[in-house]
C-alpha cells in the first residue's frame, strides 16, 4: 500500500522575463530556501532531491542537476532529474511524491525551474532539424489549429478566450510572485491585442519567464510532527498519463490521456463530481482557450459545454463556484520547466490556506494539473486538508 504523503513546504521565486540579478543556482536556491523555511527545515533534513526542467537547450547546460547538486543540498544524497516536456513540473512533483509514498524516503525536496532568458525560448523549443519541414508556425502555431477545432466542435463564441485572458491577469494582480502584473487589463485590451496565430491573440498567450518552484514532501509521521508554518496538504490522488504526439484518429482537442489521467486521480481521491467536490483548481492554461478545453477533459463540464462555465464566471476567483488559476496561472507566469510545478504548488497553498490575496475561502480539496508536448503528457494531483 502507498504511504500517506503530504506537502509541508512550498517556495517560489519572483518570476520575471529576465531575472538578471541571479545565476541559475541562485534562482533555484531562492525557491528551495523558501520551501525549506516554510517547512521549518534545513538542507540537512532532506533525504533526496528531485529536480525537473524542460529541454537543456534553454540554458545550454546538459543535465544541470550535476552542477546544481551542491546548490540544492544534495551532496551525498539521491538526486533525480525529470524531463517530460511542459508537464515536467508536475511529473517532477509526482516522482518526488512517489519516493515518499513508496516508503523509500521521509522528506524529499523537489524543485523545477527554467531560466529562459539565458537563451531564447522560441529558439530552444523548436531548433530546426535537418530533413524536417522548415519551421512554419512557431510555438503557438501548433496549438492554434487545435483551438480552432475546439471552437468548431463546441460552437463556442469568439469572446471566451478573451474572458479567460482577462480573468487570469486580474487574478495575477493578487499574486505578488506572478510575472505579469497588468494593472489596467480589460476585455478591450485583450480583444484589441494583435492576432498572433489567428484565432489566438497576443494577450491570450503566456509570457516567457525566468523562475523556479520548490516543495518539501513528507511522510505521514514527519508531516504529523512538522513544525511548518502551515498545516500539511495531503495527497489524495496522483497520476501521470502519456500518449503519442500524433496518430491516426487522435483526438487532439480532448486527448484520451487527459481524460484517463483525471479519471485515475479522481478514483484515488474518491471524487465523482469534480465541480462540486473540488474547491479550487490550478490548471495548465498557456493559451486562454485551454481553460474551456480542460474544463471538459477534467470533467468539470460535459463535452462541448466547458466554455459555458467560463462564460458564466464560474471559474473566477471573484464570485465563481469553481475558481481556476487564482494565482494568474500560466497566462501570467511561464518559466516552462517550473510552470507545471507552480500549478501543483499553488494547489498546495490553497489547501494550506497560505495563498494570501488570491486565497479561496475554506478549501478542503484542490486540483493541480500540468500538460506538455503536443497535449500528450499529463500529470495531476488532488490535495486535501484532511488525511486521505
Amino acid at each position: 500500500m502507498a504511504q500517506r504523503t503530504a506537502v509541508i513546504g512550498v517556495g517560489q521565486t519572483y518570476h520575471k522575463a529576465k531575472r538578471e540579478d541571479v545565476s541559475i543556482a541562485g534562482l533555484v536556491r531562492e525557491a528551495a530556501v523558501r520551501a525549506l523555511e516554510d517547512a521549518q527545515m534545513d538542507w540537512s533534513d532532506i533525504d533526496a532531491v528531485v529536480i525537473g526542467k524542460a529541454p537543456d537547450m534553454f540554458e545550454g547546460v546538459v543535465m544541470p542537476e550535476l552542477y546544481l547538486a551542491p546548490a540544492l543540498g544534495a551532496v551525498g544524497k539521491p538526486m533525480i532529474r525529470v524531463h517530460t516536456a511542459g508537464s515536467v513540473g508536475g511529473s517532477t512533483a509526482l516522482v518526488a511524491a512517489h519516493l515518499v509514498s513508496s516508503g523509500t524516503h521521509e522528506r524529499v525536496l523537489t524543485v523545477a525551474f527554467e531560466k529562459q532568458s539565458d537563451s531564447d525560448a522560441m529558439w530552444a523549443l523548436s531548433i530546426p532539424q535537418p530533413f524536417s519541414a522548415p519551421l512554419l508556425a512557431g510555438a503557438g502555431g501548433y496549438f492554434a489549429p487545435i483551438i480552432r477545432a475546439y471552437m468548431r466542435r463546441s460552437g463556442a463564441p469568439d469572446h471566451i478566450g478573451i474572458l479567460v485572458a482577462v480573468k487570469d491577469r486580474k487574478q495575477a494582480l493578487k499574486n505578488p510572485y506572478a510575472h505579469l502584473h497588468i494593472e489596467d487589463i480589460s476585455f478591450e485590451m485583450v480583444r484589441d491585442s494583435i492576432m498572433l496565430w489567428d484565432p489566438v491573440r497576443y494577450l491570450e498567450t503566456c509570457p516567457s519567464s525566468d523562475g523556479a518552484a520548490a516543495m518539501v514532501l513528507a511522510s505521514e509521521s514527519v508531516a504529523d510532527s512538522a513544525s511548518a508554518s502551515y498545516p500539511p496538504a495531503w495527497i489524495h490522488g496522483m497520476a501521470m498519463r502519456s500518449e503519442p504526439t500524433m496518430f491516426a484518429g487522435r483526438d487532439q482537442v480532448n486527448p484520451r490521456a487527459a481524460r484517463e489521467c483525471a479519471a485515475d486521480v479522481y478514483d484515488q481521491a474518491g471524487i465523482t463530481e469534480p465541480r462540486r467536490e473540488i474547491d479550487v483548481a490550478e490548471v495548465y492554461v498557456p493559451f486562454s482557450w485551454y481553460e474551456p478545453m480542460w474544463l471538459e477533459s477534467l470533467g468539470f463540464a460535459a463535452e462541448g459545454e466547458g466554455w459555458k462555465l467560463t462564460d458564466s464566471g464560474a471559474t473566477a476567483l471573484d464570485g465563481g463556484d469553481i475558481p481556476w488559476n487564482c494565482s494568474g496561472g500560466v497566462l501570467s507566469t511561464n518559466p516552462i520547466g517550473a510552470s507545471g510545478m507552480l500549478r501543483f504548488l499553488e494547489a498546495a497553498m490553497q489547501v494550506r490556506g497560505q495563498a494570501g490575496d488570491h486565497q479561496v475561502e475554506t478549501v478542503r480539496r484542490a486540483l493541480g494539473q500540468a500538460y506538455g508536448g503536443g497535449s500528450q503528457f499529463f500529470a495531476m494531483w488532488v490535495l486535501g486538508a484532511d488525511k486521505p
Partner: protein
Amino acid sequence: MAAAGGGRPVRPVAVVSFAQSKMMRREELRNDVEVLQPVIVDVFEKIGLSKDDMGFVCSGSCDYLVGAPFSFVQALDAVGAWPPMRESHVEMDGAFALYEAWTQLQEDDIDTALVFSFGRSSISELGRVLTLQLDPYYMAPLWPDPVALAALQARALIDAGTYGEADFAEVAARSRRDARNNPNAQVTGDKTAQELLGDDYVVAPLRRHALPPITDGATAIILAAGDRARDLCERPAWITGMDHRIETHALGARDLTISPTTRRAAVGAGLLPGGGEGSGTGGVSDDGVSVDVAELHAPFAPQELILRDALGLGDAVVVNPSGGALAANGVMVAGLVRIGEAASRIMDATAQTALAHATSGPCLQQNLVCALAAEPAGGRR
C-alpha cells in the same frame, strides 16, 4: 513497514527480461527510434508480453546527445503508447529510470514496468556535449573534455601511490578479453596489459586503451513484482536493494581518488552494513561487498579501481564479465546495460548474487548501486 531512508524494498521486484542492441561505433542506417524499436520488440518477446501488459514505462535519454529538444517524445513511438500509458522520463542514464520504476513498483497498484534508454554518441561531438555538463560559469567556458577530467582523476590516483598505468592497462586488457564472450560488445581483444602500454597517450596519464569507445545503442529491461515475476521468468533476478548518491560538482572540493557515494549507495542497497555516513574512505576496507558478479560502470579504466576499492570487492568477485564500459559505452545506456548484464548472470544461473553500478557526471560524480540475487531479500509474498 517501509524501509525509510534506505534502498531496501518492502515488495520484491525482479528483472525478468533484458535486451540490448549490438553496440557499435556508428549506426550507419538507423535513427534513434529505429535502433530502439527492435530492442523493445525483443525485450517483450523474451517473456511473451506486450506493451499492453505494462503498468509503468520509464525511459532515459539526453536531448543534447540527439541534437533535438524533446527527443524522448519520438522514442515513445517505438513503444506504441496507446491506449495512454502511465509513463515518465528522466534526463539521465536508463539506470536511474529503472530506479524510478522500482520505487513505483513498491506500491501495490502496478506489477510490471518497462524501462529503456537509447543514445547514439557517434552523431555529435560527444566530448563537447559532455563538457556542457559542467558548471556553466567557471568550467564549461574552458571546454575541458571528459578525457581531460578523467586524466586529472587518474593522476591523483597515481600520486596517491595506490595504482599506476600498468594497473589501468590490466583493467583494459581483462575487459577486452572478457568482452570476447559478449556478442553485443564493441571492443574486444586479447592483447596483454604489457602490449597495451604501447598505446599513445590521449591525455596523459590516460592512454588510448584506458578510454571508453564511442558507442551507439539502446537497451530495455522489464521489471515485475512478486508472483508476477515468478510466473514470467524461471529465475528472476530479484532486486534486493538499490540506492544512488551524488557528490559535489566542484572537482576541487572532492578527493578524486575515492568514491564515497558508491560506498554509501552500497550501504543503502543493503550490500554493506550501515556504519555512518563518513565510512567508505576507499583503499582497503574490512567491509567488502560479497557477491558473485559485479558489473561496474567505469567509463575510464582507473575508475574501475576506484569503484572496486569503494565497494571493497575481493578477488573472488568476477568484475565486468561483459567487458564493461570499456567494451561498449553507450552514453545514457551503459548504466542500464550494467543492471541488465548483472541480472542476466542470475537469470542464466552463473551467479547467485550480483551487483550493478551506474555512474553519471565527471569523475564518477553520481553513483547508483543495485543489488541482485536469485532469491528475494526475505520479502513478503
